[in-house]
């Protein structure tokens, strides 16, 4: 793959003169061959050999420094693209991918046809690829590397992998070498030995690997993306471009998705539509919901809103050939009770409004207030994204039934420094202060209300604040505070304006 990437990007190795191309890597102060193209392989070069000896074997060789991060990114991109064949794609670094095609092969007309389709698509994109299908991940990997194109019938893995060389077991170089030296040149020959002998000599891990290659033991593979709980997809024989058509498709997909979810009593909290472009690009658009959702029309409308609001609009290029709608997160949705009470309907309307606005402007912009159990003014009530808020049990302290309000209606996130003038009573409010270049004369003041920063929370050891509610001669009401305690000889304390009262 690395040389394919290089050729696609720079054209190195595409020349008809068949100059071998190798990628080199520095390993323990020696330059070694990390990857090679087909011409280099034909010339007898091997991965892992020293670059110096490679140069000795072939005269004219094109050496390029290996770029591992780029290889990794390429593999990720290919994995994204492979998502169209099966949602279960796992990386098999450095250069392999594993697809769980259970239940997906019939979409392509059987395993053979599916393998041919995938291999054909890779070739068209300029990748040399080996592929195989087997019941276990290790068997498939061994077959792909040493018997390209093989399909092991279910239960037939042992027989199919038996003729492969021992190296296909993917053991340490040392162990492989030892097995070959002992005359065990194929997997079949290794498999014929007693397991306890092998275990004693090579350890448990090696036996497990052997069993897996024989299809007798499975190792779970983890997909690179979370498998959606529910998904529906539509393939198009001809790539589609029309926005209208796509919107219609989403609604239809939503209908089939909701049907399945309804059977299980689930509703979607996070939905994702994946648009697979015919040239391999994949775009995924997510929509969150405030409560479990199972209404196709609403889902379609939310995606519509989201697509309209994208700063980087959906680019169909030459068209999409697959659209998949998946419910990534679901929650139990209790059947709605039809009561005389109008509230549930209203709650539903609110949830839809929240989803709509969040889809349009971003879920971080659609907020709800939640009380916090603290007296720190700026933390006592916080605005949290409405879709993630649990608004079932929000309880604000009952207002103290005595006027006037003790907290401002507008509060500055960052208290603004003010200049105070005039001799104040040591612990009192300033008679005059300047905020934003306007001087205010204090005619009424109430305070101090001493708020100590909670020492058990690390608020960067913020000093205690003395808050004052002050009113100027025009009736403007401010919330000021003085930082720190009044002590003789203490450094001059600073004043801030934290909020404005109605």
């Amino acid at each position, binding site marked *: 793959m690395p040389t394919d990437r290089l050729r696609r990007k720079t054209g190195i190795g595409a020349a008809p003169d068949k100059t071998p191309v190798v990628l080199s890597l520095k390993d323990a102060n020696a330059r070694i061959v990390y990857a090679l193209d087909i011409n280099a392989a034909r010339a007898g070069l091997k991965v892992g050999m020293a670059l110096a000896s490679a140069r000795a074997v072939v005269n004219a060789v094109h050496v390029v420094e290996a770029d591992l991060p780029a290889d990794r990114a390429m593999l990720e991109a290919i994995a994204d693209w492979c998502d169209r064949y099966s949602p279960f794609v796992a990386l098999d670094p450095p250069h392999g991918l594993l697809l769980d095609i259970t239940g997906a092969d019939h979409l392509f007309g059987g395993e053979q046809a599916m393998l041919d389709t995938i291999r054909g698509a890779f070739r068209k994109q300029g990748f040399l690829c080996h592929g195989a299908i087997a019941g276990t991940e290790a068997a498939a990997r061994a077959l792909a590397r040493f018997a390209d194109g093989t399909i092991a019938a279910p239960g037939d893995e042992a027989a199919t992998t038996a003729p492969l060389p021992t190296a296909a077991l993917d053991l340490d170089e040392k162990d492989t070498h030892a097995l070959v030296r002992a005359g065990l040149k194929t997997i079949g020959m290794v498999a014929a030995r007693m397991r306890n002998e092998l275990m004693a000599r090579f350890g448990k891990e090696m036996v497990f690997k052997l069993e897996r290659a024989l299809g007798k033991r499975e190792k779970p593979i983890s997909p690179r993306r979370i498998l959606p709980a529910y998904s529906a997809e539509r393939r198009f024989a001809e790539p589609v471009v029309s926005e209208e058509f796509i919107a219609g498709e989403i609604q239809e997909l939503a209908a089939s998705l909701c049907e399945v979810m309804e059977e299980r009593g689930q509703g979607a909290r996070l939905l994702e539509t994946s648009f697979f472009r015919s040239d391999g690009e994949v775009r995924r658009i997510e929509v969150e919901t405030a409560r479990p959702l199972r209404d196709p029309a609403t889902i379609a409308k939310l995606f519509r809103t989201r697509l309209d609001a994208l700063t980087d609009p959906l680019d169909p290029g030459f068209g999409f050939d697959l659209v998949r709608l998946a419910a990534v997160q679901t929650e139990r949705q209790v059947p709605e009770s039809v009561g005389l009470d109008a509230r549930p*309907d*209203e*709650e539903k*309307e*609110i949830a*839809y*409004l*929240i989803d*709509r*606005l969040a889809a*349009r*402007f971003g879920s971080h*912009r*659609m*907020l*709800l*207030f939640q*009380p916090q159990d603290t007296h720190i*003014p700026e933390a*006592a*009530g*916080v*605005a949290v994204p*409405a879709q993630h808020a649990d*608004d079932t049990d*929000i309880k*604000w*302290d009952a*207002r103290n*039934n005595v*006027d*006037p*309000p*003790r*907290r*401002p*209606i*507008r*509060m*500055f*996130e960052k208290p603004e420094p003010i200049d105070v003038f005039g001799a104040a009573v040591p612990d009192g409010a300033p008679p005059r202060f300047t*905020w*934003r270049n*306007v001087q205010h004369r204090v*005619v*009424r003041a*109430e305070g101090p209300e001493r708020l100590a920063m909670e020492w058990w929370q690390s608020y960067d050891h913020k000093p205690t604040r003395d808050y004052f*509610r002050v*009113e100027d*001669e*025009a*009736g*403007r*009401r401010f919330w000021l505070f003085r930082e720190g305690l009044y002590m003789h000889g203490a450094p001059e304390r600073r004043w801030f304006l934290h*909020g*404005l*009262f*109605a």
Partner: protein
Amino acid sequence: MDSLLRKIEGVFEGTRALLNPISGESRQRPAIATGHADADAVLPGGILPGVLHEVFAGDMSAAASGFAAGLAQRVRGQKRLLWIRQDYAALEHGEICPTGLNELGIDPSAVLILRTANAADALKAAADALSCIALGAVIAEVPGNPKILDLVATRRLTLGARNKGVTAILLRPSAHPEPSATETRWTIRTHVSAEHDEDWGRPCFDAALVRNRHGETGRWAMEWNCDDGVFAKPAGHPATDHGPVAATLADGSAQAEDRDWRRAG
């Protein structure tokens, strides 16, 4: 021919609704009393729900915020309030403070906040939200005088509000009045506390009703009673009531004063 004419009529219906003066009083919902007797006498019995109201800041934006919150609280009933505010406003005028709302007797859990990046988004969101029947009121905060907030935009808000009966309130800090389709326009200044109070009293506004589609204008001292959630005539305040005055005069003078206060916060 007849059907063709009807068709053309249908096409223009939507456009006409935006261009024609707003009519159709038949769909009007009953007014909700502010609680301030003199103001209610000039208004059609109180604040009309399902229309657009404008609240301009005469000096401090916080006073206008409080007054707008009070109006919203009056009209919203048991329904929720959506407060749309712009990112810039949080820096200039401060963030809406939930504990402060709570102290004003407005349940913070009934308030939804939408933060938008600019006036265009705020107006779009407001238009969308006015179609949500479960909302009681939408406060859209639009500081300054952006081009996008013109006569047509206010007409659109009025129509949107009338459709589902959700009251729209445009909160306009540091802005000067412009032609608009609003039902009422208020210019709010702070009002000094009553002399005899030890502590300062309830929130008190010097509220000038500078535009009233249904009657005279006026200027009153209005106090917000946090416990009962109503406006009231302040007791024992120095008299500043100007009573009903001619609309043009109040509008003109308010405008002149507004300019001085535009940048004052």
